[in-house]
């Protein structure tokens, strides 16, 4: 019987490729900035118009906001007319609104319907709105206005677009 002697030479080859390997991963990062709106007003709860002139600045609104635009609305309880207390006589007026950043938003606007203004062009970080009422002097009416106190209520509101 012929015998064979085996000599086993074992080579262990780690078969890790030698070429460069790459792997990528991407993810979206999202950060939120909440809205902020701070309104400071110099408009009193009552404003007395100087009827020796044709206009009176009733006050300012200072806005600090990061809103992406806002909508300003001004409404009149009597459709742009002051009504004589204990009477029905009307004293009409108009509204002018000027923004420190956007210029005139309204010029002698009748408040027979609500005044609205929507900002465009993105955020308005800070601005000051000046409200002025325009009217004729009582002496410029023919016949002249009845003596008395004339009253109207204005409501100013601001909301985000």
């Amino acid at each position, binding site marked *: 019987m012929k015998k064979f002697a085996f000599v086993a030479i074992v080579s262990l080859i780690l*078969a890790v490729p030698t070429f460069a390997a*790459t792997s990528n991963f991407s993810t979206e990062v999202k*950060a939120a900035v909440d809205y902020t709106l701070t309104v400071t007003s110099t408009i009193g709860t009552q404003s007395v118009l100087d009827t020796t002139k044709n206009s009176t600045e009733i006050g300012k609104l200072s806005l600090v906001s990061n809103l992406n635009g806002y909508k300003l609305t001004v409404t009149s309880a009597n459709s742009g007319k002051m009504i004589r207390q204990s009477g029905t006589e009307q004293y009409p007026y108009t509204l002018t609104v000027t923004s420190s950043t956007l210029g005139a938003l309204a010029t002698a606007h009748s408040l027979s319907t609500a005044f609205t203004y929507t900002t465009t062009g993105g955020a308005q970080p800070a601005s000051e709105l000046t409200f002025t009422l325009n009217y004729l002097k009582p002496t410029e009416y023919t016949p002249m206005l009845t003596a008395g106190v004339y009253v109207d209520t204005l409501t100013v509101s601001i909301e985000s677009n």
Partner: protein
Amino acid sequence: MKKVIIMLFLAVAAGVLPAFAANDSASLTVKAQVTPVFSVNMTEPDTFNIVGNNSRLIPSKQIGSPVVVSNYSSWKISVDSTHKASSTTGRLKLDDAETYIPYSFALTDGATTILSSFGTASAAQSITTRGGKAFGLYFNFESDDTTLWPQGIYRDTVILAISTD
């Protein structure tokens, strides 16, 4: 006749006798393949508030913990940003606007920052455990006293890349 049979037997027997000096050898190569493992992943981060209660940008935010699993003995990691402004400044872009919040980033290994420049490979890293090696990805923000960031959602896409030499 008997002689003939004996001779044949001897002849045949001689042919199967072991040769005293005979030797032989054979070699065998055995190969085993270890499949490459090389991946990087990170849980998608939640949307976070970037402005704090003091109306200023938060100073820092951990965006996530990238995990690399590698059975390569040497590899590197890099970070990139879709909206980056420079090699060290990334940017979060406001939706539908060209407004950007800048940030710097840090990729950390424990308490050590191993990377803070976009598009630059880290120093060589070594083979990981099967569970992988976790890093920390932080965004840092600079705030000032005056900037009022517009309201909305700001986004950036971060690309994590790993490579061998």
